[in-house]
């Protein structure tokens, strides 16, 4: 099988063409890459391999702040999660409220939904 990917690892956005096979052996579902072209760096191979088996993304959003100079503090995930769990992650993060002052670098949730990623505050919000 052949597929084209746009690599999202860096702004180069390489268009990567990959030829791969899914082995017929029972239980083995990991695709075997036969050829790969268009990537400017090895991270492209990593990205495509990940995309073929388990596409992952990070998200950035915000949480409510009580008593802060601003109503929100921005947050992001520290590691990508399976793409089909993005809205599950959003549902949890949406319930969070923090008390000002908030400091960038604070971990609000450890191991979100058991996905091996933390929710990290990305900006300071001083108390009002």
């Amino acid at each position, binding site marked *: 099988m052949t597929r084209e990917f746009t690599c999202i690892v860096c*702004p180069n956005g390489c*268009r990567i063409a990959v030829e791969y096979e899914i082995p017929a052996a029972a239980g083995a579902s990991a695709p075997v890459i036969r050829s790969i072209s268009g990537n400017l760096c090895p991270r492209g191979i990593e990205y495509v391999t990940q995309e073929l088996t388990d596409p992952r993304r990070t998200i*950035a959003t915000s949480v409510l702040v009580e008593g802060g100079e601003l109503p929100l503090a921005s947050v992001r995930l520290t590691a990508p999660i399976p793409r089909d769990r993005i809205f599950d992650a959003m549902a949890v993060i949406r319930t969070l409220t923090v008390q000002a002052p908030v400091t*960038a670098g604070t971990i609000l949730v450890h191991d979100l939904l058991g996905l091996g990623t933390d929710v990290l505050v*990305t900006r300071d919000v001083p108390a009002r």
Partner: protein
Amino acid sequence: MIHRQKIDALIVGGGPAGLAAALQLYRCGIRDLLIVERERQLGGILRQCIHDGFGLTQFGETLSGPEYAGRFIDEVKRLGIPFVTNTTVLSIAAPEGSGPSFRIVTTASPEGLKEYAAKAVILAMGCRERTRGALAIPGERPTGVFTAGVAQAYINLYNRMPAREAVILGSGDIGMIMARRLTLEGAHVQGVYEVMPYAAGLPRNIEQCLHDYDIPLHLSHTVTDIHGGSRLTGVTVSRVDEDLQPIPGTEQYIPCDTLILSVGLIPENELSLEAGVELDPRTRGALVDEHFMTSVEGIFSAGNVLHVHDLADYVSEEATRLADAASAYIAGDPLPSCTLYVLCGDGTGHVVPQRISGRTDFRLSLRVNRPMEDCRITLRQNGREILSRHLRKALPAEMITLDIPSRILSADGDLTVSVEKEVQS
């Protein structure tokens, strides 16, 4: 009469360009400097760019906008570099009479007016968004039409949700990022409509902001009518022909409560113009030489106010280069005079700098004026090819930079930069 304070360098704007310029000036030994920021905090537009992808070049890791700005702000504070917020620059003027070269900068803040006599003024005001008015979209005037950056500020800074059912006009990066952001916050995005036959933003954003969320991108389409009384109720979109003119009979009505515009960024140069700085109609930023000095002596410009960049990392890098030259200027080192022009040839949308000395290494930044694959970027001086490089692809969305060593340059003759499809031999 207002007290006039002497200063070596005054930096207009505390975003990515202004912060990087201030830090590098400091490292070069310039201690008598000031960053003037009109918002209440430093950081510029990065404060509302909460998505990640910043810092890959500068720090080798991917950060959100606030974290990226935070790295620079923390360093500015640690070094004790002076800055003022809530302060706007009203004018940059030439001194009365003749004498030593400096610029008179007038600022306004809640504390009142202030005047500075600055040896160097660094323009780092960034850019602003094109609006509906600039596009002249016909139709009614309901609320619910926002630029992408305004919608971004509502959601990410003020906790206000501007849309339930949205249409996005223009495929600029912020528009695509907002398509994803709105979707994450529970709105439905009908699609992104782009008048050109190619996307304005980066391929990775088409992938991770649109494809990932099943948001369609309709190329060669535009909004031709806006409907609604007090609030937007829908838009009409039409397909356009090769001359970008709407094709009659292709109109389609799309019900929506919000139209987000991501239709281009314009360097914010009103202050520069009043200061007598000559602009380049291609970039809509200042014409600068290889030292990032504008047509007015002592006034420098870098970042998005000079030309719109694709990445904040490159803004910081450019401002750092500016500071190297500006610190030499402040110290009184003569900068080589720049009398050779860098001209746009075929395939080139704009180039920066537009003037060079031909005696110093410099970094050339450019954008192509159409998407090309398998092309060759060529520099010619006096009709002679001095540099040629193959590019697998070149997109108008991406800024291209080339480091030009002085050894290949001659001290006379203009340069022409062209990007052309590779000829098969």
